[in-house]
């Protein structure tokens, strides 16, 4: 029996526009007093009308273009009708027949996931269920109601939970490159609903298990675990019942992150009828070819392009190129440090400092990168000093962090701290003699196993406060211990 998961993802992304999708209320809703960012339009009061947010529409198209989608010449909004207390108007404005953009793709490693569409819609309010004096209450906060959402729908081209996670990371990266959303899954500004079923090949027969849409997944790991759980559950269910996909047996499952399992929420999704029809309050929206090109111009170089360029122009390896481009601000800082037309040795040197020093420092201190602290001249000076063996690569990392923190020239820091590399044989020999006499055990080890010289080199480096030229140190130690 051969099992191939078929996974499609619906991703919702909250745009970080100043105002909401259809009114001028602030779109900020995280840690805001309930119902303070509201107006007649987003509260669905009688007579209030929606006016579309132009920036949000442009950002939706921008994302679509970044995903290789084609814009529709004319788009319109539609009403999706259903009753729920946090849906103020009793319908959600969305795009059904004519989304802003269609038919794109995302590369995941050497595989491709096709994008069916990206469309614009509005978020709902939030229901909070509480108990007050033993009474069960539902409170509704409409601050989020009407916040712009882009929904990106993939084709079911994803074949594993890992690939789904990679897809989300890539999507998140692109969105952050575009600067249109924080795309933070934990904070809910990026949400994901996987639809999963299985292709089962058994004795020349092919079966497809019923579709399951998984809701309430609130973390990247959650997406992965939920999909894996569902693959397992569907495999077992198929073995027991043999039920296959039909037009009417699509189910909605919820994800319980505490129990690490999915549970049935709604059966027979096929029967719900949202009675979509064109929103009469908003005229059709048309972007001219020129306007589309203007939007295209605002798209920065994307991660895939950057990685290729870094590998080609700077001879960086895959790992380094990926790390440097993981975050647009980080790659911007890196490119700023390189200055104009860097040669590949300098680029590689700087890459090591960014990955080995700056990134480590940022991770440890939990700070955000401050690009204003990056000075191309400092990196150039440091590179020259290391090339001339005045500064060791260990010291280079150390002073890079200090230079980043203080804004001082790293070479000056090294000088003031006496960290300029000692390439004076006499000086090193003096230190080496001291190290040999104090580490008789290590000396014995070395005689049995010459590869263990590293320990003695380390001690010598320590004694020189990192300033000794390690190559020279090794040579002198070997000479003395002959």
């Amino acid at each position, binding site marked *: 029996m051969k099992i191939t998961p078929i996974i499609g993802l619906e991703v919702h992304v909250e745009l970080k526009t100043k105002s909401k999708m259809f009114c001028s209320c602030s779109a900020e809703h995280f840690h805001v007093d309930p119902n303070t960012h509201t107006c*007649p339009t987003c*509260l*669905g*009061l*009688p*007579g*209030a*009308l*929606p*006016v*579309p947010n132009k920036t949000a529409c442009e950002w939706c198209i921008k994302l679509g273009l970044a995903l290789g989608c084609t814009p529709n010449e004319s788009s319109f909004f539609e*009403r999706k*009708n259903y*009753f729920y*207390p946090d849906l*103020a*108007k*009793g*319908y959600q404005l969305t795009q059904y027949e004519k989304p802003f953009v269609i038919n794109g793709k995302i590369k995941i490693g050497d595989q491709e996931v096709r994008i069916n569409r990206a469309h614009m819609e509005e978020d709902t309010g939030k229901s909070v269920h509480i108990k007050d004096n033993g009474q069960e209450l539902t409170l*509704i906060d409409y601050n989020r109601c009407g916040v712009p959402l882009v929904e990106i729908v993939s084709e079911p081209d994803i074949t594993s939970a890992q690939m789904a996670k990679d897809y989300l990371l890539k999507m998140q990266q692109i969105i952050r490159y575009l600067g249109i959303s924080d795309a933070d899954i934990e904070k809910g500004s990026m949400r994901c609903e996987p639809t999963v079923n299985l292709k089962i090949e058994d004795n020349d027969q092919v079966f497809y298990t019923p579709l399951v849409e998984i809701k309430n997944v609130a973390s990247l790991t959650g997406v992965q675990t939920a999909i894996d759980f569902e693959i397992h559950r569907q495999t077992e269910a198929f073995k027991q019942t043999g039920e296959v996909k039909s037009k009417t047996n699509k189910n909605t499952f919820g994800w319980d992150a505490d129990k690490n399992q999915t549970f049935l929420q709604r059966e027979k999704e096929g029967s719900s*009828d949202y*009675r*979509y*029809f064109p929103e*009469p*309050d*908003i*005229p059709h929206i048309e972007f001219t070819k020129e306007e589309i090109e203007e939007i295209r111009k605002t798209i920065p170089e994307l991660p895939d392009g950057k990685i290729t360029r870094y590998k080609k122009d700077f001879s960086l390896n895959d790992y380094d190129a990926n790390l440097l481009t993981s975050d647009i601000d980080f790659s911007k800082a890196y490119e700023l440090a390189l200055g104009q037309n860097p040669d590949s040795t300098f680029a590689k040197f700087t890459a090591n400092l960014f990955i080995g020093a700056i990134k480590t420092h940022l991770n440890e201190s939990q700070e955000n990168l401050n690009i204003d602290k990056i000075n191309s001249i400092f990196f150039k000076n440091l590179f020259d000093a290391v090339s001339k063996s005045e500064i060791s690569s260990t010291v280079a990392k150390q002073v890079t962090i200090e230079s980043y923190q203080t804004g001082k020239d790293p070479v000056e820091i090294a000088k003031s701290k006496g960290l300029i590399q000692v390439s004076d044989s006499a000086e090193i020999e003096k230190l080496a003699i001291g190290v040999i006499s104090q580490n008789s055990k290590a000396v014995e080890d070395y005689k049995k196993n010459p590869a263990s010289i590293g320990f003695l080199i380390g001690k010598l480096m320590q004694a020189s406060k990192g300033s000794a030229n390690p190559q020279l140190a090794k040579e002198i130690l070997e000479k003395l211990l002959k």
Partner: protein
Amino acid sequence: MDLKNLTISQIQELLFSKKVSVVDIVNFYLERIKKLDPQIKAFITITEKEALIQAKNLDDKIKKGDKVGKLAGAVMAVKDIFLTKNIQTTASSQVLKDYLPQYSSTIYQRLIDQDAIIIGKTNTDPFAFGGSTENSGFFTTKNPWNLSKVPGGSSGGSAAAVAADLCQFALGTDTGGSIRLPASLCNISGLKPTYGLNSRYGITAMASSFDCPGVFAKNVEDLALLTQFTAGVDPKDATTIDNPVPNYSELLDKVNLKGLKIGLPKEYFTDPINTEVKTKVLEATKFFESKGATLVDISLPSTKLGIAVYYILVPSEISANMARYDGIRFGRNTDNNPDITSYYMNTRGQYMEAEVKRRILIGTYALSSGYYDAYYTKASKVRTLIKNEFINALKKVDVILAPVSPTTAWDIGAKVNDPLQMYLVDAFTVCTNVAGVPSVALPCGFDNQNLPIGFQLIGNFFEESKILSIAHQYQQFTDYHLQTPNL
């Protein structure tokens, strides 16, 4: 001083020559309302307090020599589907009884900004669903010309208030004829502007792609003056058009009747038209002919499909527009519901009037999967057809002249049990809403029971100044619009 039956310019002349104060004017109408409205029942809310405060402030301004708005001294009644901040707005439905809006509708506010004074909120069919005010969740308004007759609707309260001289002008809305029909049945003038000329912001929505707010007045001259202030793009209504607003008053004499080509669509002069209505409307055409206009027989063949298209598309939009009336954020609600579904069903079930429910049901059905193409899509196609027929006809003629209502005012109660008969009263008005073109209704005579008859002039998109000019010139030579009911 007798202020009876004065137009806005007449009353402003008295005001600015200090013969009357604004308070005098307001008191004059308040007294008439107190005397006459118990029989006519045009008003749901009388805003006596607000009106007198506004009037006093305005008198102070005039006394100090401060600049006042262009509508100073003009007293208006407002259809109760226009939101008026802190003034009860019921939409004539039990759903919104006692509802106090937090904001005001754009065009109401624009008139207030010109120092017009609100005297009250008028009765209508609930959410403007109807053609007689009989569907109102509160009471039926009577026709001032004959209290046993309907005033027409849905803006029947506004039309009756103007006809009975309980105010100088009134705000209404026209989704399928709701300004022109009551104007015609009550012997006043009313303008249904081009869709997109007047903002819909702050007016409870009936059918968003049809709704046209507009004004009722005692003559076309006042319609032109008022439209000057109601018209124009509103950043809060994405369907308003950003065209410069012409000076309608200055353009009233501009159209030359000589050589004007007036189209008479044959579909508007046949069944279900009543003979007396037909005769009077044809007499009006004779007037234009005598002034040198040419009458051209034209055909708008899809007219007969108007009502069918209207009663698919309008309820479809209604079914969604009414979803917000769920009793959660505003409006009345019910207690002790075990779950949210019961809350919705009991709240909406208890307070929505029968006609409101009927239209929600029709619309929900028409939009349902499996029926959508047969109803909504098909009707949308016919809508385009009807629109194109108007566009093509208006290439051949300058303006189209037609009756407004097939009959004069009918007896209260006569059609309430037959919704289809009731829907047919709009047979001659709905197509202009389906197309979106403007139309002005004005009086042209009376039947043998002394009930008013009106006709309409339909123009091309945004040609309000043309149809108003033609209508105004008609009123320069006729006195039908000067006739008032005996009350």
